């Protein structure tokens, strides 16, 4: 084993390897996957001098701790959290030099859900269909991190790390507002249901994951019974299962589905959805198609 590697000291609740995913294979049943808060992952890469599509670690709620075998530049972005190197506080949202054998720890998020840990050179390993992302729906890509695992690092490019102290980042949302265009199956719902969706208060459910943001709130009533034959699903699709509670499809969503899609969330709003804690108030706001 070369020294271009990272040992996992504390895997955390759920830490996965993510890059920009594997779009383009939906016709084979392959989900797109990729970092849920893509701008935060891209920023982490920029801070350490990686291309935006390099693989990073995506943590969930309680961070992770890793020990590089060689001295590397690292950065933590996304959900704000205490960052330490061998126990000493260092900056969040900034490039940090981590000596060989030292432990970089991203602590529990003080807001938001997912922090991103980038390493100069990126997380390595063999890409699957062009991506190193862990896809938790279909099991493609590397398994979630486990304590004691060793991750290979990629070859660092020539790019220098960013000359910034702390990069500005949007805070996690106190209220999540998701702009939604109606359709393609809004005609499967009653006029009341459409009004309910776009005027009533919802909350982010604790059952949310990388596949979908689940919601708690008023159920949406269908105008017609019966089954919809399976059809293709897009990122941000708001699917309504029989219990009537809308589910917003995130990166690991299935490529086809049989529950009607009442609307689609603007992609620009999905990073904040990825950072919304369970219980966060949620509103859907209808917008016109561009």
């Amino acid at each position, binding site marked *: 084993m070369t020294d271009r590697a990272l040992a996992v000291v504390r895997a955390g609740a759920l830490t996965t390897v993510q890059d920009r995913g594997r*779009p383009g294979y939906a016709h084979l049943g392959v989900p797109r996957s990729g970092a849920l808060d893509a701008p935060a992952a891209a920023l982490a890469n920029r801070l350490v001098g990686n291309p935006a599509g390099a693989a990073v670690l995506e943590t969930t709620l309680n961070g992770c701790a890793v020990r590089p075998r060689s001295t590397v530049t690292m950065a933590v972005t996304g959900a704000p959290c205490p960052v330490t190197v061998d126990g000493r506080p260092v900056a969040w949202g900034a490039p940090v030099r981590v000596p060989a054998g030292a432990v970089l720890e991203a602590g529990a998020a003080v807001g938001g859900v997912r922090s991103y840990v980038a390493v100069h050179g990126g997380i390595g390993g063999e890409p699957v269909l062009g991506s190193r992302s862990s896809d938790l729906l279909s099991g493609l890509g590397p398994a979630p991190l486990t304590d004691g695992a060793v991750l290979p690092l990629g070859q660092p490019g020539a790019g220098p790390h960013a000359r910034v102290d702390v990069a500005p980042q949007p805070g996690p949302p106190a209220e999540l507002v998701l702009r939604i265009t109606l359709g393609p199956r809004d005609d499967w719902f009653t006029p009341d249901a459409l009004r309910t969706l776009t005027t009533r208060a919802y909350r982010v459910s604790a059952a949310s994951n990388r596949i979908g943001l689940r919601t708690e709130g008023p159920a949406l009533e269908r105008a017609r019974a019966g089954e919809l034959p*399976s059809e*293709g699903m*897009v990122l941000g*699709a708001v699917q309504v299962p029989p219990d009537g509670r809308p589910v917003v499809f995130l990166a690991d969503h299935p490529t*086809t589905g049989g529950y009607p899609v009442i609307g689609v969330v*603007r*992609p620009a709003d999905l990073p904040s959805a990825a950072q919304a804690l369970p219980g966060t108030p949620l509103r859907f706001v209808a917008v016109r198609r561009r």
Partner: protein
Amino acid sequence: MRALPVGDDALLVEVSSGEEAQALHAELVRRRAEGLLTAGEIVPAARTVLLDGLADPARLAAELTAAELPPVPPPPRETVEIPVRYDGPDLAEVAAHWGVAEAEVARIHAAAEFRVAFCGFAPGFGYLTGLPARYDVPRRATPRTAVPAGSVALAGPYTGVYPRSSPGGWQLIGTTDTVLFDHARVPAALLSPGTRVRFVPVTAAGGAA
């Protein structure tokens, strides 16, 4: 043909049958290959084709709505053969639905020529059509929590092969050792929309039945 907008960059094109969806999918893939269409994803399904990553979905919608549906293209010459042991736990139930003896299920299934209508559910899982409509079967009332990889199964008008172990509600009629999806292989998926497929009966020992 009806084109429904999906978000800002996608269209769901709805047609009236699975055959029309296959024909439309083949036509759209051809257009993309010839540089006449830019789309990130072209995803056929039961009665629809989804186009995602479009630059101007409104224009394409108008174009498609005005266009004639293309004829179903001839099936590809090559046929993927999938050896099957017809030993599934739901053979008796399927035989009862079909009103035939258990041994007949294998004969009827292996005599049909299948085509992959679309993929979904899991990487490499194809929804294959080809059995006459009288052989449609319902899903199981209670889905299994774990269907073994390689299970050959029926539901509605479709035959499918589970690429890996997963929960599932389809009726299991057989087993294959064929690897449906291997990310290290090119192409990774054995079956893609339009692929022609035949199931070849084999005995447990591996010989022809």
